[in-house]
């Protein structure tokens, strides 16, 4: 009989996975001539008065580490698993009359992932609705990456919903959706330079409120999109690229609309960037997103309580319930 065990190590241990931000290796082609054909100069932003802007983000937390051990088949060895919670949502900045912000579309999901494609079910935990999924991987990084993927999918769905409702959406991280919605991806870190030296020099010359001309990533590939750099703030003693973020929009949005949203981000994003002293990730970690992360973390519930509930549920199990038909591997 297979049985699930909760690892006694705190869930924070184990290799943290940065299963994000890295791009498919095929994406190296860049067309810098979509907006201007000559030499690049910084372009001023323009706030066209978008009525509401939604900042979408998600957070996740590993609640516990699991081990599935098959007493009937000890040779099989322990099979790893994780219990994780993630939350996605948006800070919607209503900009008419008296501006104010609200948290909207906030959802919390809990997920148990078992490695090696095992389809056993985590027993019911009162008050916590864990959905069990299987993945072929078997190390921590792969399990966590699975959770990350689910969270990114939820973020994408949330961004699409908000865009359909008429909000201009700023989603954290690269865009992973390519329909013609007013959704831009907001990339805080620069793992690579997309631009060749002549254009890259323009980034260094940006002042707050200015952007580079649009460029097109992967013009011949599958995940085509527009991108541009925006300077949020002048960072004292910073290098030329500090205080700069990269934004993306779907290629399907069309060049003209992409220019409009690019101008908008160049004008608006510096306004919601935090001053350097209030956030260790300033200025890139925008105030609405920082607030949202704090709120979402709160929504996940107390980590110790969640872990305790899991432990109680697993200790109470006699046999694992049969796999739920709809919860097999996806």
């Amino acid at each position, binding site marked *: 009989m297979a049985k699930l065990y909760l690892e006694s190590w705190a869930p924070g241990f184990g290799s943290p996975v940065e299963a994000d931000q890295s791009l498919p290796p095929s994406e190296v082609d860049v067309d810098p001539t979509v907006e201007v054909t000559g030499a690049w100069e910084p372009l001023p932003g323009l706030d066209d008065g978008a009525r509401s802007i939604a900042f979408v983000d998600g957070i996740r937390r590993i609640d516990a580490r699991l081990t599935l051990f098959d007493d009937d088949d000890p040779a099989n060895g322990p099979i790893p698993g994780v219990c994780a919670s993630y939350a996605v949502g948006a800070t919607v900045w209503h900009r008419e009359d008296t501006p104010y912000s609200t948290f909207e579309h906030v959802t919390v999901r809990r997920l148990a992932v078992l490695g090696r494609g095992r389809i056993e079910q985590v027993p019911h935990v009162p008050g916590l609705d864990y959905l069990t999924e299987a993945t072929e991987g078997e190390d921590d990084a792969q399990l966590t990456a699975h959770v990350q993927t689910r969270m990114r999918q939820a973020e994408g769905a949330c961004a699409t919903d908000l865009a359909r409702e008429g909000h201009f959406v700023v989603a954290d991280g690269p865009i992973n959706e390519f329909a013609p919605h007013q959704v831009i991806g907001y990339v805080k870190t620069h793992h690579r330079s997309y631009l060749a030296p002549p254009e890259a020099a323009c980034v260094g010359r940006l002042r707050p409120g200015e952007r580079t001309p649009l460029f097109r990533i992967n013009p011949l590939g599958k995940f085509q999109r527009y991108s541009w750099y925006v300077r949020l703030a002048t960072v004292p003693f910073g290098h030329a690229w500090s205080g700069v973020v990269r934004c993306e929009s779907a290629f399907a949005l069309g060049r003209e609309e992409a220019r409009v949203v690019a101008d908008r981000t160049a004008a608006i994003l510096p306004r*919601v960037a935090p001053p350097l002293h*209030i956030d260790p990730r300033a200025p890139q970690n925008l105030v609405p997103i920082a607030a949202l992360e704090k*709120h979402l973390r709160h929504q996940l519930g107390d980590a110790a309580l969640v872990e305790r509930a899991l432990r109680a549920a697993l200790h109470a199990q006699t046999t694992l319930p049969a796999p739920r038909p709809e919860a097999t591997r996806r």
Partner: protein
Amino acid sequence: MTLPPFEPRRSAEGGRVGRVAGVGQTTSQEFRVVLDGDRYLAVDDLVVVRTEVPEAGTVSTYGIVTESEATYEGATFDSDVHRIGDGGFQPAERVRSARVAVTRVDPEIWVAAGPGEVVERARGLDRQRALYVDTIDPQKRLAVGVGRDGDEIEIDLDYFDGTKGGHMSISGVSGVATKTTFAFFFLRMLTGLPNLDPRATANLRALVFNVKGEDLLWLDRPSTKFSEEDAATWQRLGVEPTSFRLATPSRDGRGGSRPRDLGAGSGPTVAYWAPPAKASRDAVLPDVSGRQEGIEAFYWTPEEFIKEGLLQFVFTDASDQRNQIPFVEERVRTQLQRWMQPVEGEPGAVTLVDPSGAVHSAQGEVIRDMDSLVTVLGMLLEPEGDDSDGHPHPAWAGRVQPGTISAFMRRLQSASSDLRLGRLVRAGVSRRIDRSAATVTVVAIQAMHDLAQRFVVGALLQETFREKELTGQSHPLSVVVLDELNKYAPREGASPLKEMLVDIAQRGRSLGVLLIGAQQSASRVAPDVLENASIRVAGRLDAAESERAEFGWMLPSTKARARLLKPGTMVLSQPAVPVPVVFSFPRVPWATRRDEVRPEGDPFKGL
């Protein structure tokens, strides 16, 4: 002492206002309320929470709001308010809460209010329970004003009239604390409220000393400052807003006076007394400048002075107690009483006769006033020349050192000047203050020297106290209102006056002599006097004063606010209610200053 327009807060609605906060612990003493978006709680508001307690069932927790709080939930830095308020791009929730001190738990099971329980504003019966009004006999509920919620605040009369406690202490800085005005408002309620036990209020007599200005000489005159709103509040509290009626004491026999008929209305009466003016040697006119009519002059005849032993109140200065002077004074006082004989044809005057029949050095000298008293005593105590070989009379001086005797004589002489006691003792028809003539007897001693003020206060307090001691009846009650109590019963030093006040504070309760003492600094008043006051009231307090131990009965939040109280707003502490309550009282219909007096023939007269 002018009061601003009286504006009781509009009665707030009852019903749910929020829930008991769940962050941090609630205790049986204190909890916090997180308010609903559309409700508020202000400091001094009363609330009730009902908690289901295992085994015990529903427990009602009553409390009073001691602090109101608000914060942006979601803000970490002060500068976040700009991002929240101006830019609007940082989400935050404005959370308002209130801190509540528990006043009562019913049934008496002291458990903490449950987090998340619904909090309601206490109205009606709940409000009565929160303030323990339900435990007060309806005949003893004395309304003294309205609370911050617009409803009546009541004093348990049992704790004033001597049944369970007595005396009242009023503190506050001069000018804005409206101490004296409140004392009179209280007296007016005490004599006017129809619900009160008639035993406690019938034939009540109050003795009041006017020690500053002539502010208390207008109790019978309508005020120009009194508004219709004030009148409405009076009506609501249950008393017709009328001034005191002027009573004219009769000269033909004690206690037979009747209030002069001033037309419609009834209510308590007032009589004014003042010492004779310096120049009025024969006419005996009262020494007041503001008004002449309706004021009686008073003095003591030498006969009364000696009989009542008033000599002790000549030596009330703390420095008088340090040497042998009290010993001499006591001996002289007793001797005077033993040797005194009336003089034929001169009412009030006395002469001294040795009971043994022996002739003494002051034989035949008539005592008509202080000067002649000093002369006669001088003959006996400090004889000059051959009369008795320069030796003082042994029955009067005993074995006291000559230096002490001359110190005694020096002090008596200086006290006898016309500016001090000279005016207060004179032969003639008895003109003692008739305390039975009116409900309120105002004695105007503001123009007199400190020494004379203390003399009058001492003499009248002794008279009041002795009368009660003799009859042994506590009813009708006798109330004494004394401002600047620290002058008469100071914390440091000893004097016969202080002893008398301590005695009244300690025993007066059972004898029906009740002291309403007022002072700027309670810390400068004898603790014995202060501690015996069951009812404590404070108007605006000096910041340093409010931190002293004498105001330990206030909550920290009350102390902080006591510095800011407006005229007419006061803090009340009474034994029946374990927390101090803030209340306001309406302006009074009588003038509290000369310039407030409404001219005669005013169309609003009798409003």
